[in-house]
């Protein structure tokens, strides 16, 4: 009996469409979120993450509608977030069909937000989205989609967020994101050893070996990736088979 390591595809959503950020190019359309969600559900994803990358006030209703449409397609857990600033916004995301809500910028500005959400909905429903950049021998937390440095040590902020009731950490290496150079295993292992909640590693995934590495060396509980799954570079089923054959506890679909 073993708790399986999870493989989690991520949908970055803008104006109701899944998009991918391309350097100097802007956003490329990757498809319909409900269709992609249904495909990943079918292919054996352990969970799905949907992030509102526009996070604009006008786009909020569209995003909630996207959550509703995606949730209808799933019989696996759904995590959603992006720009959640208030308790009521978190509630709306959960009522729309998400099982967990992510918080980042607003929680750094007002950590009490985590406490409020956790008291209301339980720690299992609150995910701290932690975007970090390496700074010498440590890592610094960033907000606003990786644009603003917070001056806070990532491990120290992770520990505070957990003590306030975050039940999981979605950890993104900004340095690795989009580079296809593999997960930052050192970072993941550092955060995983600092907090007693599951850590989802994100940023840099390219090969099957990268996933093996982040589970073995990075001690990640789950690994998240977006474009390599959307573009069908890798099928989730093939990745899971690869990991299972190398001794990683994995839920294989039948």
């Amino acid at each position, binding site marked *: 009996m073993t708790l399986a390591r999870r493989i989690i595809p991520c949908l970055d959503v803008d104006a109701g469409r899944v998009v991918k950020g391309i350097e100097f190019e802007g956003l490329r359309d990757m498809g319909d979120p409900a269709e992609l969600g249904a495909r990943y559900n079918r292919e054996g994803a352990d969970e799905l993450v949907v992030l509102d990358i526009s996070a604009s006030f006008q786009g909020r209703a569209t995003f909630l509608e996207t959550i509703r449409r995606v949730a209808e397609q799933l019989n696996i857990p759904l995590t959603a977030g992006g720009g959640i600033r208030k308790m009521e916004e978190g509630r709306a995301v959960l009522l729309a069909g998400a099982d967990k809500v992510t918080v980042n910028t607003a929680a750094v500005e007002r950590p009490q937000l985590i406490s409020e959400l956790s008291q209301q909905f339980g720690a299992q429903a609150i995910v701290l989205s932690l975007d970090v950049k390496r700074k010498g021998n440590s890592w610094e937390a960033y907000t606003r989609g990786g644009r603003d440095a917070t001056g806070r040590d990532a491990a120290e902020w992770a520990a505070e967020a957990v003590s306030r009731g975050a039940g999981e950490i979605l950890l993104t290496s900004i340095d690795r994101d989009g580079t296809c150079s593999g997960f930052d295993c050192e970072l993941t292992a550092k955060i995983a050893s600092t907090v007693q*909640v599951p850590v989802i590693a994100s940023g840099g995934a390219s090969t099957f070996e990268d996933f093996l590495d982040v589970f073995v060396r990075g001690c990640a509980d789950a690994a998240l990736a977006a474009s390599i799954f959307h573009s069908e570079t890798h099928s989730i089923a093939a990745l899971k088979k690869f990991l299972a054959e190398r001794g990683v506890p994995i839920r294989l679909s039948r």
Partner: protein
Amino acid sequence: MKIAIVDYGAGNLPSVERALWKLGAETERAIEPKQVAAARAIVLPGVGHFSAFVAGLRERNLTSSLRAAFDAGVPILGICLGLQAMFASSEEAPGEAGLAFFPEEVRALPANVKSPHIGWNQLRRVRESALLREIPNDAYFYFAHSFAAPASAAATVAACDHGFAFAAVIEQGNLRAVQFHPEKSGETGARVLRNFLESVQ
């Protein structure tokens, strides 16, 4: 037959409803005691805090109608917090009384393991189970919880380990309960719900 899903004001009912509809079941949200009293099968879903759950039941006067349904032999399926609420009390809310269908206390997962216990885990079968009928022994189920009932509870038919051995599936008389989320556990979870529906029809 319509399945009454108890709506205590804070659960995530839509995913449970959708999972039951996909299996051809009709559902209604039970928010009043008379709906619980008239029900021929009841689902008690729940996420969040033990005290919010039992307070929600109390404020809607649903506690005594649920006890009456239990006494009358109406099949009841508890999910996650719905399982925990069937016990006498919980460390999550000292002093708050649960439905007390079972005498044990629900306990916090210990500090030496990651908590919440989030993700897909397997079960250890204790005895034959109606809910797990035709599900392979190594199947995975999705868990998301920080508290759990001890596996030593007499009604435990399948256990799971995370810090301590806890009750993952409970069956006793007309009571059924699962600590995992069948509505989030893929095809395996759908089979658990189908087994429940078949046992009440």
